């Protein structure tokens, strides 16, 4: 009969083996509004918000109703400041102009935030006529430069949740990430939670945000904000904007079926932002595939439309257009990246296209 110590060792070995199993399997990368993490394969985004300041992301396990990862974020800097006024409007602009460091953001009260969240969860458990219990662990600092102040927590009532709340001193965001599931999934939840917390990042790297969902993975400069999206079965579209500059990322599935009816060129002409007839075309290699690349200036009518859309703002006014479409036979998908940019942002298309992982 194994002793207590032996049982503990066996359990630890089992846990290590399970961990190794998870890490060895191909993982799903999820990236949205600067938040990115890695989860087991086939986990998919099922809910999201368009707002970068205060938003949420929900990722579900392949079998619905089993486990869910919920990530919420809010900008602590904005919360602290209160309603906007002339000072809050002008101060960051002057700081940027004179290259002064950002104003110090007071550290938010994480415990108060967490208690608020747990109170809401308790209310839901009460509605479901279930008891509620929660455990809050002491506050600790973590991260490479101790930039994070974090509190781990767990709750039990109606379902089960294991989560973490932290404040990041770099991006001034308060992030709440939790894995929610049924009480029977406790072991699996613990594994997912450890994987989630180990891989979750809350701010951009090298000035680029990773946007990743449903096999689409692309890095976009962090000063571009998400303007529109279309997430359909077989077609994904993400549109970003910075002033009047735009980046459009499209991904179509079933490339082999599409290319039986259309050529790559004809398909792209039907979906491009501007008329491609007058633009010079060249072919180049991208990620080992042949890419049809177009570049030229934006026609006058499209410029007038852009001027109307940006309400007359001439800052970084887009005058150039660059785009490319390629087929990735490895994943049977078509990828297209279109950029409407200012003369100063030369090379933007290349940077985004190089950072778009197709396989």
């Amino acid at each position, binding site marked *: 009969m194994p002793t207590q110590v032996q049982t503990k060792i066996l359990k630890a070995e089992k846990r290590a083996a399970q961990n190794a199993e998870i890490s060895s399997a191909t993982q799903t990368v999820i990236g949205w509004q600067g938040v990115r993490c890695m989860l087991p394969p*086939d986990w*998919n985004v099922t809910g999201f918000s368009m707002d970068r300041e205060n938003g949420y992301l929900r990722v579900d396990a*392949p*079998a*619905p*109703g089993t486990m869910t990862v919920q990530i919420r974020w809010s900008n602590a800097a904005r919360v602290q400041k209160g309603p906007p006024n002339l000072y809050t409007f002008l101060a960051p602009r002057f700081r940027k102009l004179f290259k002064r460091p950002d104003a110090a953001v007071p550290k938010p009260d994480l415990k108060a935030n967490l208690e608020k969240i747990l109170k809401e969860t308790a209310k839901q458990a009460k509605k479901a006529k279930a008891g509620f219990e929660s455990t809050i662990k002491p506050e600790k600092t973590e991260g490479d430069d101790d930039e994070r102040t974090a509190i781990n927590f767990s709750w039990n009532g109606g379902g089960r949740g294991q989560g973490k709340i932290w404040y990041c001193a770099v991006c001034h965001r308060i992030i709440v990430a939790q894995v929610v599931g049924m009480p029977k999934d406790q072991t699996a939840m613990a594994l997912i939670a450890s994987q989630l917390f180990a891989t979750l990042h809350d701010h951009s790297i090298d000035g680029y945000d990773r946007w990743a969902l*449903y*096999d689409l993975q692309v890095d976009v400069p962090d000063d571009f904000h998400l303007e529109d999206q279309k997430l359909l*079965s*077989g077609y994904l579209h993400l549109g970003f904007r910075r002033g009047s500059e735009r980046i459009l990322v499209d991904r179509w*599935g*079933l490339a*082999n*079926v599409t290319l*039986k009816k259309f050529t790559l060129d004809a398909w792209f002409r039907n979906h491009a932002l501007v008329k491609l007839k007058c633009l010079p075309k060249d072919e180049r290699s991208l990620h080992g595939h042949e890419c049809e690349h177009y570049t030229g200036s934006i026609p006058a009518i499209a410029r007038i439309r852009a001027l109307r859309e940006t309400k007359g703002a001439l800052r970084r006014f887009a005058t150039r257009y660059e785009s490319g479409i390629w087929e990735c036979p*490895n*994943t*049977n*998908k078509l990828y297209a990246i279109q950029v409407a940019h200012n003369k100063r942002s030369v090379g933007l298309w290349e940077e985004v296209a190089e950072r778009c992982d197709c396989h």
Partner: protein
Amino acid sequence: MRLPLMLRVKYGIGRYLPFLKIRPPKVDRQAAMLLRPGRNSMLTWEKRETGETMLLVPQNEKVGRVTRTMARFLKAPTERQVELDEVGGYVWELCDGSLTVDAIVQRTCKQYKMNRREAEVSVTMFLQMLHERNFIGFYKKTGKKA
């Protein structure tokens, strides 16, 4: 399989008078994925060289004698053609009553290198559409209708 008349009336009332809270029972996803879609034996189909599949749906089968005579007199078409694209044709061929919805999703995923969720949404919607038109039926086990 069509619901009994009484249930259809009941759910019809519930649909138009929502405050009565009469709703059809929710279908469990796991149970739905284990159903086996089977083709309607009245239908014939042919595969074209372009990859599309053409379904030939017989018409004027369940109509009265007068209508049938009129249809013959006016030379009305006896069958309707429904064109399915390549992926639709592939799923149609898999609906032989031996494969579950889950297996069809998996095969479609593999064949067209689709994301599991994307394939699941497309295939289930397509099967639902075929079922609404009575082109397929669902079996709980091979040979027995649900």
